[in-house]
């Protein structure tokens, strides 16, 4: 399985990512998921989320998750982009692409990847309110 992981402080350029897509002729599913920053976190209105990552460990944990996916599903490729730093409301903080022969394994692998990320990958978020740069408590 081909994998690509990017942790970036810059915006996610989905058109560029799709233009770079490599997909063999046996593949029938190209699944893309965007995780987008909501304006409400725990019923509080925010303007952005500030993401912090322990980069080395995050990359290692994503690699372990990729290995688990490769053992469980016939996935041709998995690409993940996660932003770090301040991400405004309505912008994606997470972009995932799974290329697979059929939709079932693509959906299952994508769901697994995101669930595993939320359990294991050391990335944290702080809501940014309208009147302060960051709050003191994580969401």
């Amino acid at each position, binding site marked *: 399985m081909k994998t690509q992981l990017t942790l970036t402080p810059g915006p996610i350029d989905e058109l560029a990512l799709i233009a770079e897509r490599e997909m063999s002729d046996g593949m029938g599913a190209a699944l893309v998921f965007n995780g987008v920053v909501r304006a409400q976190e725990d019923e509080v209105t925010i303007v952005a989320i500030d993401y912090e990552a322990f980069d080395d460990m995050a990359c290692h944990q994503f690699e372990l998750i990729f290995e688990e996916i490769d053992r469980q599903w016939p996935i041709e490729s998995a690409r993940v982009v996660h932003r770090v730093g301040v991400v405004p409301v309505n912008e994606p903080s997470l972009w995932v692409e799974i290329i697979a022969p059929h939709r079932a394994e693509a959906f299952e692998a994508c769901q697994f990847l995101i669930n595993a990320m939320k359990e294991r990958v050391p990335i*944290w978020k702080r809501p940014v309110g309208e009147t302060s740069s960051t709050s*003191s408590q*994580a969401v």
Partner: protein
Amino acid sequence: MTVTVQFWSYFKDHTQCAATSLKLPDGATLADAHTAVIAQFPVLGDMRHSTLKAVGVDYQPDEFPLNDGDEISLFPPVQGG
């Protein structure tokens, strides 16, 4: 032995530092290091049971035996996505 401990997310706010070093007896475990950190920063005691612990880039259990120079990380539950 001497180990370093890094704090992440709001643990840094509570400790008001990004890292500290600990001197521990030979044979100390990750749980021993965690206990020593809480003695130094009591505010982290309330979060003891929800604290995630890693050595290097891998999660490790409380009974993990430490070695001189190990880099420990302590942090709250992760929140990516």
